[in-house]
């Protein structure tokens, strides 16, 4: 383990010769996945799923791996923490948990929230829950098919883990901050979150991801959520990357009988952001939502890629994505709904709406439906529009200045997404976040 950043190497070199640190995976698995990832190679624009998104230069970039010893300042931490919400906070910087920045209060009996590496040590010492938790690692993220999952498991140093035992309701949200500091130079980072929720448990999980510093970086995150029967999860993630920051994230949710999950991602900046989601409804009665809001400008390129898999009958899914694109930004949405032959009485909805604010901005929407069951309700809709001239004139004719009226209309477009968040204490902070972002864009 290097305390300083050590040497910068290309991603390919890192995979060929991974640092044999005590990561969250045992060394032999780490090496096996490194080998696999090296063999798979990075996707290019010739891969259909990556047609619109280029991780420009990633292969050639020499990137630093590791913590480097820096910590975010108070303002940076504040920008990643929702205001006025009582919560337990875990802070990771360049892939490592920084204990002195964490604020974790008393949690209900049996709840585990902290370092995955620590959980591995606990498992080795015979703690049964820790072993059970670890059994879930990599089950949903498909490291053998998805190269970025393999890379994350190989090069990841530590991860945040949450274990909620059956029947337990978390009294307040848990927040996982993942900050990237690229002051020392281009950084390669593997944020990781593993959440396992027992039957009838409830939790609100917040993720705040942001990059600071002039240096370019590549953040490759994986978040896995396992929900046992009737578990309820609200997942809210805010992404604020730097103008040169690149982010790939994979979010994987698996829902058992009558479980409920809502996942919301707010992408507010970043050079290239690729958010992949996989929602698996594997037992009857499960219901999942994936919602996304991108509010970007400049050269930002945000690519959202969903895969909702209805395996069991009588499940519901909703995907709602809204994108606001200013200046030269790009918004791509590819939404896949897959309904297995057994998944009768599936109810699947997909909505995608883009608001394009400048002639240079561009939005793409690609719905992909694959339905094998016959008794299925499946709807999808995609719209691309600009700021409505009639609405704008209406507001101005009442005395509201043009720039304020524009902001009001964009905010209203975003509000529909914030309205989908059911964790009541998160609504106001998210609304303020949008207000602030719009003010920064102005």
């Amino acid at each position, binding site marked *: 383990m290097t305390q300083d950043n050590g040497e910068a190497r290309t991603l390919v070199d890192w995979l060929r010769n991974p640092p044999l640190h005590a990561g969250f995976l045992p060394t032999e698995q780490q090496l096996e996945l490194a080998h696999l990832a090296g063999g798979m190679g990075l996707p290019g624009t010739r891969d259909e799923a990556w047609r619109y998104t280029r991780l420009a230069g990633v292969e050639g970039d020499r990137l630093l791996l590791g913590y480097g010893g820096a910590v975010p300042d108070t303002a940076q931490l504040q920008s990643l923490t929702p205001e006025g919400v009582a919560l337990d906070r875990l802070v990771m910087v360049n892939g490592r948990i920084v204990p002195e920045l964490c604020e974790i209060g008393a949690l209900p009996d049996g709840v585990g929230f902290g370092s995955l590496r620590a959980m591995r040590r606990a498992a080795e010492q015979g703690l049964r829950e820790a072993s059970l938790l670890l059994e879930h690692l990599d089950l949903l993220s498909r490291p053998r098919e998805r190269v970025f999952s393999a890379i994350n498991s190989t090069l990841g140093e530590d991860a945040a883990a949450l274990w909620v035992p059956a029947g337990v309701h978390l009294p307040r949200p848990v927040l996982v901050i993942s900050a990237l500091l690229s002051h020392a130079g281009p950084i390669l980072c593997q944020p990781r979150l593993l959440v396992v929720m027992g039957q009838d448990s409830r939790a609100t999980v917040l993720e705040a991801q942001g990059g600071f510093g002039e240096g370019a970086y590549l953040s490759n995150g994986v978040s896995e959520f396992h929900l046992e029967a009737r578990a309820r999860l609200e997942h809210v993630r805010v992404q604020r990357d730097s103008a040169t920051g690149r982010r790939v994230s994979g979010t994987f949710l698996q829902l058992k009988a009558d479980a409920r999950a809502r996942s919301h991602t707010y992408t507010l900046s970043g050079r290239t952001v690729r958010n992949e989601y996989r929602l698996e409804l594997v037992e009857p009665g499960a219901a999942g939502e994936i919602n996304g809001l991108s509010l970007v400008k400049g050269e930002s390129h945000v690519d959202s890629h969903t895969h909702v898999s209805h395996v069991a009958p009588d499940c519901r899914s909703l995907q709602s994505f809204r994108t606001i694109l200013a200046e030269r930004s790009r918004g791509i949405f590819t939404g896949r709904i897959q309904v297995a032959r057994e998944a009768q009485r599936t109810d699947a909805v997909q909505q995608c709406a883009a608001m394009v604010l400048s002639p240079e901005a561009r939005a793409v929407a690609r719905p992909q439906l694959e339905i094998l069951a016959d008794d299925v309700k499946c709807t999808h809709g995609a719209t691309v529009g600009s700021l*409505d*001239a*009639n*609405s704008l*004139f*209406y*507001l*101005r*004719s*009442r*005395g*509201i*200045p*043009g720039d*304020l*009226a524009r902001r*009001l*209309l964009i*905010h*209203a*477009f*975003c*509000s*529909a997404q914030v309205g989908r968040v059911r964790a009541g204490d998160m609504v106001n902070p998210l609304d303020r976040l949008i207000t602030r972002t719009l003010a920064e864009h102005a």
Partner: protein
Amino acid sequence: MLKIQDLHASVAGKEILKGLSLEIGPGEIHAIMGPNGSGKSTLANVLAGREGYEVTAGSVSYLGRNLLDREPEERAGDGIFLAFQYPVEIPGVPNLYFLRMALNAQRRHRGQPEISAEDFLRLISEKLKLLHLDDALQKRAVNEGFSGGEKKRNEIFQMLILEPRLALLDETDSGLDIDALKVVSDGVNALRSPEFSAVVVTHYQRLLDHIVPDKVHVLAGGRIVRSGGRELALELERDGYSWIGKEAGSAEAAR
């Protein structure tokens, strides 16, 4: 207060107003009538400053200064209010939030302090009562899911809150039942004072039974072809506009 001289205006390259002149004094209510396509709505929109309405000649002065180089929000701040023919639905913006933002923007424009939350709510409940309106509508998004009549009433309600000096009512009465018509006319009459003027664009004389105009003008072919008192509206009701072709033609010939 408002002086329009030889106004020419085009929409999408097509000339709609062709030399319209009109003068409205403080405290006066003028009705503008005329057949479809004569330019009534164009006039209202040009005065409010809607984009896409291009003034090619003529002048409009309001309170002694050129109106045409002002932004729509400046015109509103200076006291011009357009009641829309088709009020716009704005999902996600609560009515009261919007109205308070508009009122405060106008007050800032006039160098007045912002209204306090308390005073604002008092003002709202007072005007709701005046129009016998249900306050449930005000809690919803602007015009969202409102019926046609509710939208028109909401226009009048906004007008009462914003207290303009010059109201432009663009066919506010069309499609309204008699109760809604009463709300509209009560609203306008409540504002009547030596400082309040209005241009009431309408197809029907029935609105003018409730809002008694000082003057009635007939707009045809983009110009005012006849002006008179209240009795002109009654005459139009009886005889229609069939005579216009002839008169407009002779006016054209006289130029």
